[in-house]
């Protein structure tokens, strides 16, 4: 018996347990939800604002009984999602998509490159590395447009204390910022001096990922060890609606995480 679209599109209830304001336009929703499968870092869910619409949102945190989603306001659905309060109920279905290949990074140095909201799907990667005692083999390169756009500001310090090598940058000089400025991709060559034979996970604006892949390649890193997470417009999340296709690929099913060398052929980068 083949699955039906209707069945797969029916959401379950998710109760908002807490809302954490991350930036002017961004919140982290902590929610109680009981999916049939435990989500993995890099996967996403479809969050349904009743009678408004659905958005694909990555897991930014995965703990027993609760999941976290960090949402940035860009349009209709995300406006509703970013104005929720504890106790509110929304629709939820998932998890979908291919996780980050954590096992490829196990026992090796990992460079995490994040730009803007692209930090959200990488946060569970950092958590996992710390939990598995690999904080010291993890370098986080994280860039945002301005200091107040840096997400998880309190946690960044904790990660640093746990042993993660956290290197931050913001795009342009700012009165309240004494750290590095410039694009996050400019931090990659330096990180490569520290890291030995590394694996890399990248998520951010498409142009940033394209540049980052180029930098890794120029530095002689085999692109079969570099992964990116791609964003495409999605309606179903499970390979039926056709929206997320790029060439023969369904981003929702074959991705959103892709090996850079494979993605390159498809996108023509």
């Amino acid at each position, binding site marked *: 018996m083949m699955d039906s679209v209707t069945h797969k599109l*029916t959401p379950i209830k998710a109760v908002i347990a807490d809302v954490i304001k991350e930036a002017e336009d961004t919140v982290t929703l902590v929610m109680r939800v009981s999916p049939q499968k435990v989500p993995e870092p890099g996967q996403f869910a479809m969050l349904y604002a009743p*009678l408004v619409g*659905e958005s694909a949102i990555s897991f930014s945190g995965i703990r027993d009984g609760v999941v976290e989603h960090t949402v940035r306001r860009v349009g209709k659905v995300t406006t509703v999602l970013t104005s929720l309060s504890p106790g509110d109920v929304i629709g939820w279905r998932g998890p979908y998509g291919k996780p980050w290949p954590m096992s490829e990074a196990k026992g090796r140095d990992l460079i995490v490159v994040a730009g803007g909201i692209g930090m959200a799907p990488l946060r569970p990667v950092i958590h996992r590395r710390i939990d598995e005692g690999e904080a010291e083999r993890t370098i986080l390169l994280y860039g945002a447009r301005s200091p107040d756009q840096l997400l998880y500001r309190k946690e960044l310090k904790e990660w640093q204390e746990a042993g993660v090598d956290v290197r931050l940058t913001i795009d342009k000089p700012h009165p309240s910022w004494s750290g590095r400025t410039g694009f996050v991709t400019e931090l990659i060559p330096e990180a490569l001096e520290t890291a030995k034979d590394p694996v890399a996970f990248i998520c951010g604006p498409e142009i940033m990922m394209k540049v980052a892949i180029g930098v890794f390649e120029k530095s002689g890193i085999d692109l079969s060890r570099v992964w990116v997470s791609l964003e*495409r417009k999605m309606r179903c999340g499970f390979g039926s*609606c*056709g929206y997320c296709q790029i060439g023969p690929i369904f981003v929702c099913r074959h991705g959103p995480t892709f090996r850079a060398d494979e993605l390159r052929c498809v996108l023509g980068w």
Partner: protein
Amino acid sequence: MIYYAGPDFLDRVIRRLRSDGYATYAPSEWGWFEVEGHFSEPPTPPPVPPKHVLRKTPSLVLRVKGTRFEYVEPDRTPVALIGIRPCDAFALEILRKVSMFSPTLVTEKLSNLFMVVEECPNPSPTCFCADAGTGPDARVGDLAYMRLGDGFLVRPLTERGKALLVSVGIDELAPKEALETYNDIVNKATKRARIEPSPHHHADELKEATWEDWERASRNCAGCGSCSISCPTCFCFDIREVHEGPDEGGRVVVWDTCLSLYFAAMASHNPREKIPARLRQFVMHKLVWWREQFGITGCVGCGRCTSLCPFNVGIITAVKEVVKK
């Protein structure tokens, strides 16, 4: 085996299928209609592809009352498509393959579908089913027939089809002359159901095509989407909200098209903003990427995307322009 059936063939078959619980539909110039008996010969092909009969959209998939989300059981009434053309029957087999990867809007209907296929003595100028390997004689379905004078030449294609014939008492083998006429008609129709350059024979050129080639191919394309909405294999759909009160309503699925501007548009950017990129998506998906995804072509050669295009573009003209150089 080819059987001969008299003028009441369709009456008998349709009555039988209806008493077996099938909803029976036949195509016409104006769409598909529920039929109870004989109907006149449909166009080659009819303007509306069968996917719109198997799933009329908008179609409700979720009922919402406040924060209560209610599953909506899909309609599972068995359907028999009578008079479906060979290309369209093949298209449904293709959608069956697609449904193995992930469910389509017609998955439920495909699992108990009966097809009585009307073969094509008179392909249209835009038909290229012979190039696609899908017609003009039936390749798939349960039963195939061709109108011949007042009567019908009938071929069972499956056990179910054979059983249906037996149950309505059709057991007279077609006479030798009738078989010769049939073969003659099919051979002539096969010659007509080809197009040069054939969309199916230029995958390599399509893969190598440049942006300028696609600009040339799409210079008359308005991005209206008629091509993929009328394509029998296109499976894409949108999900939209419907409102019936302040906190009541639901979600519907709607057949959709990658030719529209908003299809791939995200807050950050639109990877297929320009029309050449969108027409390329349609043509490449049907002729190249579909094979990589599902191991079969996505184009059955019905020609609708060109014949129903307000500007005569579609796959036929697009491929012709791309391979021109």
